[in-house]
């Protein structure tokens, strides 16, 4: 969309190799950065070769992949829910964490994306423009960058340290960077909408907020909601990983079973997670198709 490819293939024109210009230079720089990085890390191919213990584990892990568990591998204390129920419960809680996070991230991200967009500040106010507008916009953009600058797991660790183990804090820790990302992408989508509907509404006397809510946001919303649904899929993955930090999502059980060397259970959990993500992906595709 934003990228034109004029220099290489034009309809009917001669086919040229890409010129030794900026693109070749970019490729060379990337390759050089890769070599320097690999040297810095001391990477060698031997590191890709498992040692004896690794081979044993690898063999067991691969073997378990073919025979995932359908019940607990070891004795469990009485009162433990049946294995399939534990899987479903863990998946359900993973989805709940993700949905809770998105229920915060979507409204917050939407608000911030409006405040960060150029289009909103271009809408005329009855009282005329104010110099504070630009300051607010820049401040919101900095806020968005800061929200995005920490990975959701780091937010989670921060809240763990500051507040202790708390499920709401875990949900908030996913919501913060996700709201930032939604706001960043959303403000770009808002700025890509046509100017004229809102301008026409304002010409007929509509105020700034009315012009925003009728003339601007509806045009950006389908694309933004498709993107938000994709982010929901990402939130499910993040919620799954939160289990590694003690929250009752599916990651918790993956980690526990792995520590106990119950590899067939590990695979059962992993397959369940994969199935969930594939399902959500298919759902997401359906939503995207209908929204666009």
């Amino acid at each position, binding site marked *: 969309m934003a990228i034109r490819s004029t220099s290489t293939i034009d309809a009917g024109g001669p086919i040229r190799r890409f010129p030794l210009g900026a693109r070749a230079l970019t490729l060379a720089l990337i390759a050089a950065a890769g070599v320097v990085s690999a040297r*810095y890390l001391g990477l060698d191919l031997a590191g890709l070769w498992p040692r004896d213990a690794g081979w044993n584990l690898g063999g067991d892990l691969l073997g378990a992949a073919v025979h995932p568990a359908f019940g607990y591998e070891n004795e469990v204390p009485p009162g433990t829910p049946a294995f399939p129920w534990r899987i479903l419960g863990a998946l359900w809680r993973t989805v709940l964490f993700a949905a809770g996070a998105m229920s915060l991230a979507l409204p917050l991200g939407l608000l911030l994306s409006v405040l960060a967009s150029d289009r909103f500040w271009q809408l005329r106010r009855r009282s005329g423009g104010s110099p504070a507008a630009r300051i607010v916009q820049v401040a919101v953009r900095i806020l968005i960058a800061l929200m995005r600058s920490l*990975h959701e797991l780091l937010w989670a660790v921060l809240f763990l340290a500051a507040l202790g183990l708390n499920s709401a804090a875990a949900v908030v820790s996913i919501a913060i960077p996700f709201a930032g990302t939604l706001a960043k992408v959303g403000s770009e989508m808002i700025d890509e909408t046509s100017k004229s509907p809102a301008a026409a509404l304002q010409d007929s006397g509509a105020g700034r907020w009315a012009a925003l809510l009728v003339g601007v946001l509806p045009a950006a919303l389908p694309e933004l909601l498709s993107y938000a649904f994709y982010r929901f899929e990402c939130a499910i993955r993040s919620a799954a990983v939160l289990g590694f930090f003690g929250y009752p999502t599916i990651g918790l059980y993956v980690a526990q079973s792995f520590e106990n060397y119950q590899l067939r259970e590990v695979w059962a959990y992993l397959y369940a997670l994969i199935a969930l993500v594939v399902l959500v992906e298919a759902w997401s595709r359906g939503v995207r198709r209908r929204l666009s």
Partner: protein
Amino acid sequence: MSAKDVERLRRARERSPFLRWTAAVLAGTALLAWVGGTVDATDLFQSRRADNLVRFLSVDAMPPAVRDAAGAEKLGALWAWARDLVASRYLSAAAATLAVAIVAAILASFAGACLAPLTARSGPGASSRPRRAVSFLARLGCVLCRAVPEYMLAFLLGALLPSAAWACILALAIHNGGILGRLYGETLENADQRAARAWHLAGAGRLVATVGALFPAVLPRFLTYFFYRLETCVRESTVLGMLGFVSLGHWIVQARAAGHYDEMLLAFGMGAIIVLSADLASWIARRAVRDAS
């Protein structure tokens, strides 16, 4: 008369039950998350949490050297403390974080470029049955690759491989390779197919035709996606260090385990700085690619 017409038109209006159900299910799930007891928001506002927070901010997050220093010297002590930590640990850890992300993004991009001709449903002979099967399988592979979170992949690979750095790189490369395979494939689909067809008619094989005729044209788009993924790789790489290799995440885990929350916060700051600079660098690079093409 008019009211009847309006009612008839309203009944016949275009609706999407699928989207309505989606909205209802998602809203219901979000509501259940908050009221069903899984996510306990009230617990967040109990005095115990407030006490934790106060202690964290006033005691835990305060470097001892700063607390002990007198009035005006506090700032100097803070600076000396931060400088020593950054110089001795965090700078090299940040470099390792970046290096892992760069190698992983390059591998992911390479894997994605290899997968793209397979996932794309275009090009010479695209409508044949075996070709469609290949495309379906490749797409499924891409979805599977990105279904497992990087962190879990790295966790499993870390147990398998002797090199923790490789485990993280592979985890990132597999996940992002799946994403790029799909995105690159869509780029190929949207590219002008005439050149590839011309090559194919002139006797080039399907692969040669795709690579030779299309890749130069789609390179800018590929590069743009590469830089986007590099951003996410840097972000992920800061946390993958928690699983072993000496990156920022490693020091975060160490500081947390030792209860040195002051050091942990400094590592967070360092992580934020490299993520922000990676975003900035990627933005500059994407603009350069766009302007050059």
